[in-house]
């Protein structure tokens, strides 16, 4: 499966706006995070377990267990601070 990964705010500054990721099916948002953590020290730092981080799958807030599909867009970003 080919996925689009997007980053925002402080994570975007560290890792760039977006990248693509190939991952075997089936996979979840949590699996995607693990693959990215393994891809570079910068990813490992930004996406580390235990760090305050929010995730979205196809523009909806998502948890680790959410299954991804071919073409899915998975986004990682810090806690939100609008308003």
């Amino acid at each position, binding site marked *: 499966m080919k996925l689009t990964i997007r980053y925002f705010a*402080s994570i*975007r500054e560290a890792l760039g706006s977006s990248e693509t990721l190939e991952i075997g099916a089936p996979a979840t948002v949590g699996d995607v995070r693990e693959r990215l953590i393994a891809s570079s020290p910068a990813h490992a730092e930004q996406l580390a377990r235990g760090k305050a*981080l929010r995730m979205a799958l196809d*523009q909806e807030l998502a948890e680790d267990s959410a299954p991804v599909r071919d073409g899915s867009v998975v*986004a990682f970003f810090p806690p939100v601070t*609008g*308003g």
Partner: protein
Amino acid sequence: MPRVSVQSEDFDLSAEVEALRRADGDVGAVVSFVGTVRDSGGVSEMELEHYPGMTERAIESMIDEAVRRFELRAARVIHRVGKLRPLEQIVLVAVSSRHRGAAFQGCEFLMDYLKTQAPFWKKETTPEGARWVDARVADDEALSRWGIAAGNAGGGKPAR
């Protein structure tokens, strides 16, 4: 008129409230909230980033929930993005209802929801440099009063 606008331009509170008031003869109450950039703490500029598409979708679904919970007649949310200066307007939430109680509650609910679930991020410029604003646990607690777990500043599961 759209219910949600994410824009760099400023907005006119009077025009937005007038539109809500005039649109519906059953409206007996309009409550609005405007969030602004504080002129304190040495902040010279604030930059707002968002996730285009997701932001609008998230706020639309919050409005659906607010309308359902409080039987609102209508709602309007405008959130600015890009570079803002101290004392500028950041966000407008305005809601209409038949009676004031629902409008007061619906406006506060929408604002509490938006603070912790809409994908916006603030970066402040100060004499020491630029820094990303930290999420506040108090904002998670504000949403929890409505029976919704925010899972933002405190981590954990997203609101549903």
